[in-house]
């Protein structure tokens, strides 16, 4: 995660610095900050028109607004930007819908090379894991060996593939596949269609015919996350000519900032349902709009900290925490408190990676993943208040009791204590950085 953010936010931070210690957002402040935001969004491949509308909206909202006491004007603008970005991306995760009358049919459509065939396999795999009985249908009769590719993928996954070769009309193949699914009790059908340019009328017509013939539950547009300014045209065409119900973003495991996601969402109004994030067949996951918003802006660090500092803590508590950090009185109780706050925010590693000036290297010592968090919580909750405030009293028998009480092992208890120590060390360094820059303290870090 850190890689997206490295370097990207430095320019913005500079701009923000200039805007410090003013009580109200002026037009001049705004112009400077919005220019940086505009460039950041454009470099992330968000469509130009959308960026323009977006910046106008931000300016309207921000101008003349009183700056919250805890923020600088620049931070305040970014806070507004982030809120609007999430608004634009959609704030909640959108799930695949199923037909009340099986089979539920899904058509995967998109440009050549977007990753339809692979995604078809991945989605089938996901459905299978959810207890569905999927059937993959090979309707791409044009690309050489496309059918073979789907068959190989299906084979790997143990999911049957319906094909009738490349001589028949795709509409007939699709129709026949539904009959086949009905007779063989498949409850979900994934139709892999031929990749096409959105301006290819003939092939778009074919898609419409397939749609009319099979009445899909959903048409899913597969979009390469690396798509540039043209994403708008692609989404507009497929959405306008064919109608789509959702989007799958592929190749998000690269280093693209993925502005296409924003463009596609803005133009079609349809939710992005899945993100494909790797080459393996289980590398697909539900799409979280909020995370994407941060990634696109490439300022996840700054804005998340602002957001989190605000949302999670009132000023007094934050001050207390800062003091604790400085004086190294951060206890396991605070750690637990933090963990519970963070559950709303993302993983600890994510949070740490958002702090400007900290590289991924610093994270290696703090090995905390999300699944572990639940166990860690259980461990701390199994401690007495005395133990939580002073872990040094944890002798072997106490550790044994805690392990039994939390349903974990002594090793895990030990690991937690070690992680906690590492974190404390890291936090100490961080508060030093904060002092050095004179900036971080202002963020009211939620630690």
């Amino acid at each position, binding site marked *: 995660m850190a890689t997206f953010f490295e370097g990207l936010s430095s320019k913005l931070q500079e701009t923000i610095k200039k805007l410090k210690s003013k009580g109200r957002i002026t037009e001049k402040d705004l112009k400077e900050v919005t220019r940086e935001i505009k*460039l950041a969004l*454009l*470099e*992330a*491949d968000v*469509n*130009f028109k959308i960026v323009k509308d977006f910046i106008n909206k931000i300016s309207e909202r921000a101008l003349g607004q009183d700056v919250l006491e805890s923020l600088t004007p620049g931070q305040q603008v970014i806070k507004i930007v982030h809120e609007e970005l999430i608004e634009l991306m959609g704030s909640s995760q959108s799930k695949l819908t199923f037909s009340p009358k099986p089979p539920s049919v899904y058509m995967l459509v998109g*440009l*050549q*090379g*977007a*990753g339809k*065939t692979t995604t078809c396999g991945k989605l089938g795999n996901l459905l299978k894991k959810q207890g569905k009985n999927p059937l993959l249908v090979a309707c791409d009769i044009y*690309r*050489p*060996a*496309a059918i*073979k*590719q*789907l*068959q*190989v*993928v299906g084979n*790997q996954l143990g999911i049957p593939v319906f094909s009738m070769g490349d001589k028949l009309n795709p509409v007939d193949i699709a129709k026949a596949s539904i009959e086949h699914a009905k007779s063989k009790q498949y409850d979900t059908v994934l139709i892999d269609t031929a990749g096409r*340019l*959105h*301006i290819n009328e003939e092939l778009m017509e074919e898609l419409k015919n397939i749609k009319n013939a099979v009445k899909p539950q959903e048409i899913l547009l597969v979009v*390469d996350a*690396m*798509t*540039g*300014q*043209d*994403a708008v*045209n*692609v989404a507009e065409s497929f959405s306008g000519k064919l109608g789509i119900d959702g989007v799958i973003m592929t*190749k998000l*495991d*690269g*280093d*693209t*900032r993925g*502005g*296409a996601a924003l463009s596609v969402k803005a133009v079609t109004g349809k939710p992005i349902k899945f993100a494909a994030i790797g*080459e393996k067949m289980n590398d697909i996951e539900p799409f979280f709009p909020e995370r994407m918003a941060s990634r696109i802006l490439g300022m996840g660090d700054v804005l998340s900290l602002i957001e989190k500092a605000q949302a999670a803590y009132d000023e007094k508590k934050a001050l207390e925490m800062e003091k604790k950090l400085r004086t190294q009185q951060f206890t396991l109780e605070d750690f637990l408190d933090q963990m519970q706050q963070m559950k709303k925010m993302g993983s600890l590693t994510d949070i740490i990676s958002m702090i400007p000036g900290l590289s991924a290297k610093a994270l290696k010592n703090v090995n905390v993943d999300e699944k572990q968090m639940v166990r860690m919580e259980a461990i701390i909750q199994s401690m007495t208040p005395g133990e939580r405030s002073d872990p040094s009293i944890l002798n072997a028998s106490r550790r044994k009791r805690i392990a039994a009480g939390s349903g974990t092992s002594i090793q895990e208890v030990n690991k937690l204590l070690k992680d906690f120590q590492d974190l404390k060390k890291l936090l100490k360094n961080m508060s030093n950085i904060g002092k050095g820059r004179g900036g971080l303290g202002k963020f009211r870090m939620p630690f």
Partner: protein
Amino acid sequence: MSFFEKLKQGLQKTRKGITERIDQVLVSFGKIDEELFEELEEVLITSDVGVETSIKIISDLRKAVKEKKVTNPQNIREMLKYELKKILNKGENRLNISTSPSAIIVLGVNGVGKTTSIGKIASLLRKEGKKVVIAAADTFRAAAIDQLEIWANRAEVDIIKHNEGADPGAVVYDAIKAAKARNADVLICDTAGRLHTKKNLMEELKKIHRIIDRELEGADKENLLVLDATTGQNAISQAKTFSEFVNVSGIVLTKLDGTAKGGIVIAIESELGIPVKLIGVGEKMDDLQWFNPDEFIDALME
């Protein structure tokens, strides 16, 4: 149909986009001022030229306008054309494959059209009288070998392949032996699509190169990076990262027949100095063409 006409046809959508907007801008301004430059900058950015490169082009344009004391907005079009041509004319656009055999390694992220481009390059070279051998070294993607084989048949060239999952290095090794034995002029190696962020796969590329360097010592070598015209600013990152591992000598820009403007090649040539060598303007065998920067810009701006 001449190349120029074909390119123009393929670029029709692109052309409309850029020129119409540039004309709109130029017509709507009675005089040349800062706002005009800003609007032109926008036009470039919407063509995926990228923020940095667009700013640079416009700043050069601004300088030229000032130096030549141009006052009529209508004169700006030619000047902008000149600036763009200047960037695209920096590198050598022809393939350097004069030794026999010489090697072309085709690289790129997933889904840009590597396999298809290889089929088309093979056909192009064969028609120029060269004997071509293809190495099916994408042993990773399902059915990639089958796909390449179909293209090899269409292009009427030889293909050397192993089974899926085989060591790509071994395929390349065998293909070199075959190319030598059959007195081939050019060996074209397919490679598995890889996101440039996957370091181990990038290492595999280096291995392929080591084999070629060892077995074809002194032979001309082209590393062609295939880019999808619809790709945005990430293409720069792709080109940069591939360049860290191998010496990328040229770009093949595919899918220019869509509405994508492919402006990203201008950014790549400007920022990284890698020239475009071939462009794909359609799905048919002969829809891959040698790139001519002047014609490209003319077609774009006509």
